[in-house]
């Protein structure tokens, strides 16, 4: 499977934020997108996910076959908001995510074990701290399988131990042949990751 982005241009409210961004990622490859605030990292991720229209260029997923025809169908998108319902319990949130997205991978309990939060399953999501919420959102990446992970500031609010655990999860995903695009300011601890600096001329 190959995620190919060619000459991508994006805008925000009519103002161009970046153009001529190209990269290609094969199975097991990770791209770290860096750049100062407002350089269009989040916009890039949303365009790659298909949540925003591109103002130019193309995004495609080669070799996904019938099961993963495009990036949107093949991706987990972890945005700045956690996509969890504060009024529902953590377990309800995770099992909804699993049932709605299909392709179950880990159960809700196992996924919470992976982020070292086994005790919060029956708590409403709204009761958790910022870091715990982020960890539950990360557990949401594990409840159903998607080959492409699009992560927007994934480690925001995480403590050091959680960051390490998350790096291990990302490495495991890459070893299984997954693809990761992560926008971040902090090193993710992944060796051999490609880097894309936004705000320059969009070179790889």
């Amino acid at each position, binding site marked *: 499977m190959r995620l190919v982005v060619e000459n991508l241009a994006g805008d925000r409210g009519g103002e161009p934020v970046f153009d001529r961004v190209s990269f290609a990622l094969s199975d097991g490859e990770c791209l770290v997108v860096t750049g100062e605030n407002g350089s269009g990292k989040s916009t890039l991720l*949303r365009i790659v996910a298909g949540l925003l229209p591109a103002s130019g260029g193309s995004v495609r997923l080669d070799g996904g076959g019938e099961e993963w025809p495009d990036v949107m169908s093949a991706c987990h998108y972890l945005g700045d908001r956690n996509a969890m319902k504060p009024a529902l319990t953590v377990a309800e949130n995770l099992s*909804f995510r699993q049932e709605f997205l299909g392709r179950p991978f880990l159960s809700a309990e196992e996924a919470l074990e992976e982020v070292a939060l086994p005790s919060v399953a029956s708590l409403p999501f709204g009761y958790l701290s910022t870091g715990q919420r982020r960890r539950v959102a990360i557990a949401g990446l594990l409840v159903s399988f998607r080959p492409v992970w699009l992560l927007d500031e994934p480690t925001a609010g995480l403590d050091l131990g959680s960051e390490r655990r998350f790096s291990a999860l990302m490495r495991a995903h890459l070893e299984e042949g997954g693809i990761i695009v992560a926008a971040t300011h902090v090193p993710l601890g992944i060796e051999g990751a490609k880097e894309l600096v936004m705000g320059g001329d969009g070179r790889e």
Partner: protein
Amino acid sequence: MLRMVPLPRFAGEDLQRMLALYIRDLRLGVRAGGGALVGVLFFLVVITVAPFAIGPDMNLLSRIGPAMLWIGALLASLLGLDRLFQADREDGSLDLLIIGSSRHMMALVVFVKCLAHWTTSVLPLVVAAPLLALFMNMTFDSALGTALTLLAGTPAITFIGAAGAAVAVSLPRGGLLVTVLVLPLVIPVLIFGVSAAYAVTAEPDPFLPPFLMLCALTLFFAVIGPFAAGYALKHATD
């Protein structure tokens, strides 16, 4: 190990996903902050206040009863509609719904959300209508007839409202705007609903033609509304 066999694609899987969404929205609707009871309370307020304003003319009350119930139910069901997608947008769940819907139509997701909203917020209005009919001095037949027309007609209001809510999803105070946007479209529902409700007791008037028109409106908007809302939602993301 992850990439074992491609999952078989069959309709049952989609049904399961939609059921999960329906149950999630049902839970959200009845839990604290869901606002399911707000509509019923509003309905209660409108109908209990009406006899005080109109005065103790029993015949007048029973004559305008079905229309009052319909107006009350209409306004009450429009009340929580603006939150239909806004709540999902604020916590990021809308992205999840759109990404998850890449395998089926966004319209289907909207349709299921409408059904859940109707069940938690509008169905209680239909159930409360025969009780509130007592305040309007309505006969048993008239009360049941009005509840029946509400049962058939209120889904149309929800489906139309979904399209309005989707258009106004990114506006912070879109509540009134949604009401104004959808009001012209719900007027036909109100007209046929009230005329069917009147026909139950007013003998020479036929019941079936306006009632079937009402059912047709509901079926029509059950298709048009979710498609329009789905289209608007996909293009309203930022």
